[in-house]
């Protein structure tokens, strides 16, 4: 018995040592996938894969197609499928309350990586997995004085636009989503209107009261109203749409994308005066 215990002990320590050393000697050739190599996937696209037939999950800003793994997962399928087509980081970090998935599960998950989660403006929704935590903190510190709060910074960003009539557009994936027109008088916005407002084939300007997406149209109209007579630097307030619009979750909880309107207005300013007053 003593000999067996001693032999098992030595064999155990030797096995561990072998595993660690083999890994140390061969581990360097493993590459991690960089964010920019990944296909961009929006929340809407993600939501289309919410069943056992096709189960995508967004975890820490990346999207995984785990359809093939679902039958092998030890947890009941029902629980697992609940998270399909959704942002599932919370479920991943809490296998049981407070217990994250293991490093092994993490490695297995990487095999099912298919893309990164982005918002409608193609901006990542969460820092990439490869981004060091320090960078996130730095960026947050930089955002503490956003153009929305700092008039001088806003002026510096916009230069000194001349008074006149302006037109500009925000385009994504080959189609115009926002097209605006406005006048500048003494650096103040007047007559802001949408020439075009559409997303995924829906023409928002043609919507009528009672339509499902009508509240989104109202949000945009409210933006135009609130910016009327405001200094041009006020557009940066749209980075925080709640400061301009009453209801930012007009449509099924989706947050208003004020950035698209900023983009269209800045596009107009960049193009220069469209017509002199």
């Amino acid at each position, binding site marked *: *018995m*003593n000999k*067996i*215990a*001693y032999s*098992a*002990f030595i064999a*155990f320590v030797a*096995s*561990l040592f072998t*595993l*660690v050393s*083999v*890994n140390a000697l*061969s*581990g360097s050739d*493993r590459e991690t996938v960089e964010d920019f190599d990944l296909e961009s996937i929006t929340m809407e696209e993600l939501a289309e894969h919410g069943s056992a037939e096709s189960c995508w999950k967004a975890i820490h800003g990346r999207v995984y197609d785990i359809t093939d793994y679902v039958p*092998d997962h*030890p947890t009941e399928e029902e629980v697992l499928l609940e998270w399909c087509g959704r942002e599932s980081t919370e479920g991943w970090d809490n296998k*049981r309350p407070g*217990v*994250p998935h*293991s*490093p*092994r599960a*993490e*490695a*297995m998950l990487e*095999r099912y990586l298919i893309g990164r989660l982005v918002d409608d403006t193609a901006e990542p929704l969460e820092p990439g997995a490869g981004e060091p935590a320090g960078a996130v903190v730095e960026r947050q510190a930089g955002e503490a004085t956003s153009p929305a709060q700092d008039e001088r910074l806003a002026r510096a960003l916009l230069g000194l636009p001349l008074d006149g009539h302006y037109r500009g557009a925000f385009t994504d994936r080959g189609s115009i989503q926002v097209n605006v027109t406005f006048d500048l008088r003494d650096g103040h916005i007047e007559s802001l209107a949408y020439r075009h407002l559409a997303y995924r084939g829906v023409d928002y300007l043609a919507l009528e009261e009672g339509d499902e997406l009508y509240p989104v149209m109202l949000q945009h109209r409210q933006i135009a109203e609130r910016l009327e007579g405001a200094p041009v630097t006020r557009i940066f307030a749209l980075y925080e749409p709640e400061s301009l619009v009453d209801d930012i979750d007009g449509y099924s909880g989706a947050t208003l994308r004020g950035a698209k309107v900023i983009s269209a207005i800045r596009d107009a300013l960049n193009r220069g005066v469209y017509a002199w007053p």
Partner: protein
Amino acid sequence: MLRLPRLGDSALIVVLLLPLAVALPRLGGLSGPPELWLTWVGRVTGILGLAMMLLAGLVSCRVPGFDRPFGGLARLWRLHHWLGFAAFILIMVHVLALGLAAVPASLDAAVATLFPPPSQGAIWLGWLAWVAMVVFLAPTFDFFGKPHYQRWKRLHLVSAVALLFGLWHALLLAGEAWPWWLLGIAGLGAIAWRKGVAPQRRHPYRIEQVVSLARGVVELVLRPEGSGIRHAVGQFVYLTPLDERLAAGRGEEHPYTIASAPSDSRLRIGIKDLGDASHALQTVMPETRVLIEGPYGEFFERRFPQRDMLWLGGGIGITPFVAGARNLGAGSVPDVHVHLFYLANNPDRAYYRQEFCEIAARVEGFAYTQHYHRDHGPLTEAFLREHRPDFAEREIYLCGPPGMNAYLQRLLIEQGIPAARIHSEVFDFL
């Protein structure tokens, strides 16, 4: 003949399997690709390993009477030893299986599974438990030579640390915590009892007389200061002498068999000079105090109560039979016939001979045969048959030096006597 397992064993198996039974439905099956069945093996061995560790702790409680459903303290101690051994092996299988289960994912994942970032404290608690386990088991399994008894005993207390870390590790990772709370409280509670409460509850006795039986053998006659203990024939106690003039072993506890009948108002203990502590006791001063803890053991456990008994005793191993004979001599009526063979080298070393002769003459159901190695050589089947023709049909109890024990076991097994009918209680390293 199929006999039911002992009550204690059955209870132990039920408790041992409890955490596994509770967790099993969640663990999936032992099928599928290697990473899945290796994970299953890793978890099952982990659960069983920790349960065994905690039960090893539980059975070490040494509460008088607790050992009897297990067939006596010596057997319980062997169970404790086996549980500890199995736990040690299983826990290493647990670690390796879970590490290997991650290899199909990647080597990085395998190493990260076993040595995760410090934030995953639960895994590191498991490692701490393992390190503590190596510390207290290394001397037990003679990794680095045989340790000094008292130092081994102190080092063995590290087991409490191992249990604590192991339990914490499991509570953080297990799906269902309640079986672990149950076993954890039982295991750690037993150690706390053993080391904290039990020493306060020893019974004080005063040495009334030190009777010299032969060179290197004395019988201590102890008078209880309080109510004393109540014992059965063949049981033993832990004795802690407090005589300040003792050269060794003062305040240390050692096991000794009780040689007096249960009805005797005095506790008589035969002690042979076998080590430092028992050597010092040969000259212990009368009227000094000793502390007694017990009684323990189940030497005269009856598994075939209808059969007559054969007692084979030699050396200081004669003491349980002395207690048995004195019990008969004190008027206890035997329900079966008893025949004692007293094995000694020569008349000088047969120090209880007179008393046996006297009792055998008085008590009808008790026969006694003296066997001298000097005259007859080792005990033979022919000698036994000559003095007790039906010896192979009896339930047999033997006690003596290890060499004699092994020799007699072999002799009896060769006669076709089933091992279940041969009782022997060896307490080495108790």
